[in-house]
């Protein structure tokens, strides 16, 4: 029997239809939910609620969960290969996505040592700097590659203990929406990862202006969209992340983080 799948949004650990009831057909065949600004609002609220507990998890535990996501993705490799059109190239992209997750899983408990510093200061202070999560991160996933692209942006954000609201590629959303099923079975607490599909021109302005979003990754935006995002992000001084997608890098993790410097008096 051929069971057709109903693709859904992933909000607060649940697979839901758009509250607007709308759908669109990116490839002319499959119905995909067309998320509204209210779905976005719900996703941000869920992420904000999930943030304190996620950031309080031990780095090791976050690494375990990211590694589990790699396992779940790997075990569904054939499905993702098919979604990406099949063939050697598609399989290679799935493998890359798995490797990306494994790579960032290893970084969770190593980043503070590498990115953190003890600063020499001219006074009786122990002065040190540590990376801390920024909070709710909006991610505009690039259209290409449709699976590895979103994984390369979500994984470093999660590695740094942020929570994520991701916009799936508008024209090729199926790998991203299926990736949500991987996150749903990887022990991520509800709300830590949220994935929305829909039209970018409808969702992006609300995401960029949302006062409760602390950073926005514009990997999938056109230059005009980046300018609009930067203008809207100014209101709450959102961090706008414009690091080019490329190889996995610890700098991509710190791009999603805030550096906190502490002056601790000594000899007092």
């Amino acid at each position, binding site marked *: 029997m051929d069971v057709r799948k109903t693709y859904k949004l992933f909000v607060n650990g649940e697979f839901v239809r758009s509250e607007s009831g709308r759908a669109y057909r990116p490839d002319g065949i499959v119905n995909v939910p067309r998320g509204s600004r209210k779905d976005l*609002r719900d996703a*941000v609220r869920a992420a*904000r609620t999930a943030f304190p507990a996620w950031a309080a998890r031990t780095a090791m535990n976050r690494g375990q969960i990211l590694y589990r996501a790699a396992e779940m993705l790997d075990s569904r490799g054939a499905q993702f290969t098919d979604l990406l059109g099949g063939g050697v190239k598609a399989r290679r992209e799935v493998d890359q996505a798995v490797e990306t997750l494994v790579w960032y899983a290893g970084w969770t408990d190593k980043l503070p040592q590498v990115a953190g510093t003890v600063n020499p200061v001219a006074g009786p202070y122990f002065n040190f700097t540590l990376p801390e999560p920024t909070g709710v991160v909006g991610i505009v996933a690039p259209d290409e590659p449709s699976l590895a692209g979103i994984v390369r942006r979500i994984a470093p954000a999660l590695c740094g203990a942020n929570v994520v609201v991701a916009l799936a590629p508008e024209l090729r959303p199926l790998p991203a929406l299926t990736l949500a099923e991987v996150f749903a079975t990887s022990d991520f607490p509800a709300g830590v990862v949220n994935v929305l599909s829909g039209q970018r021109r409808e969702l992006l302005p609300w995401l960029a*202006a*949302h*006062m*409760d979003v602390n950073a926005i990754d514009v990997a999938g935006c056109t230059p005009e969209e980046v300018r609009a995002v930067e203008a809207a992000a100014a*209101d*709450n001084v959102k961090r706008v992340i414009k690091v080019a997608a490329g190889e996995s890098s610890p700098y991509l993790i710190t791009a999603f983080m805030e550096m906190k410097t502490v002056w601790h008096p000594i000899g007092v």
Partner: protein
Amino acid sequence: MATALSLTHLGSLMRGVRSVDEVGADERAASLAKRSIKKASKLWALDLAVRCMDLTTLEGSDTPGKVTALCAKAIRPKPGDATIPSVAAICVYPARVADAVAHLRGSNVHVASVATAFPSGQSFLSIKVAETVEAVSAGAHEIDMVIDRGAFLSGDYQRVYDEVVAVKEACGKTHLKVILETGELGTYDAVRRASILAMAAGADFIKTSTGKVQPAATLPVSLVMMEAIRDFVRETGRQVGFKAAGGIRTSKQAIAYLVLLYETLGSDWMTPELFRLGASTLLNDVLMQIDKERTGVYQSGDYFTID
């Protein structure tokens, strides 16, 4: 004004209370909650919600300092924005009334005090009356009393009635709100009976819950109470207020209560004199929604005071 009813009269009053269509009440409340209130109407409703709010703190850990902060917030909910009105009252434990009165002097914000062995109501009548008298003399403008649910549920209506009458007497001119604690009454029939009983005994307001018991205020229970008020007004001509309290945290919920109020009791009741929303965390959400309507941008809790 309440007059003491004899046992037989009270019995016939209670027997005369018609029963409630439970499915019908649930359905009507659910359908009214779906009504869409947008833009200018939403701003109007949110403004009214602020004006009708009893900003509440009822924790064992309440300190004079916390009450002071709450008073400042009650007078000027959003510092720097004079277009946001003051709330109706702040609601505290009797021991904190004096603190609140001192900080609200000169404002039009009332001080409401819970009394009568809140939240259980399981104490002696003399103590309940004494607590009320103390709270009133400390300067409370409104008293929120609880009924003795144990007596009510065991059918001792006379005892409940007499207690309300006694506390009303102790209140004098001070406004009396009677908390039914609907979450412990079990059925809508019992809620309706308790509502009629409280109003007959002289309540100025009837109030859903203490906020200490789950479920607290729900829309269908509020509908049942509002309908009891409507019928009571028809019988006696005396207007009784309604206060929903407990579990109301979002603007959406607050607006649903206003819709229910308008559809059941009409626009006469859409004033702080006859309607209150008891809440501790609702105010920030309302302020955020007002800002969202004004700026067109979703707001963040980071920019509003922590209570």
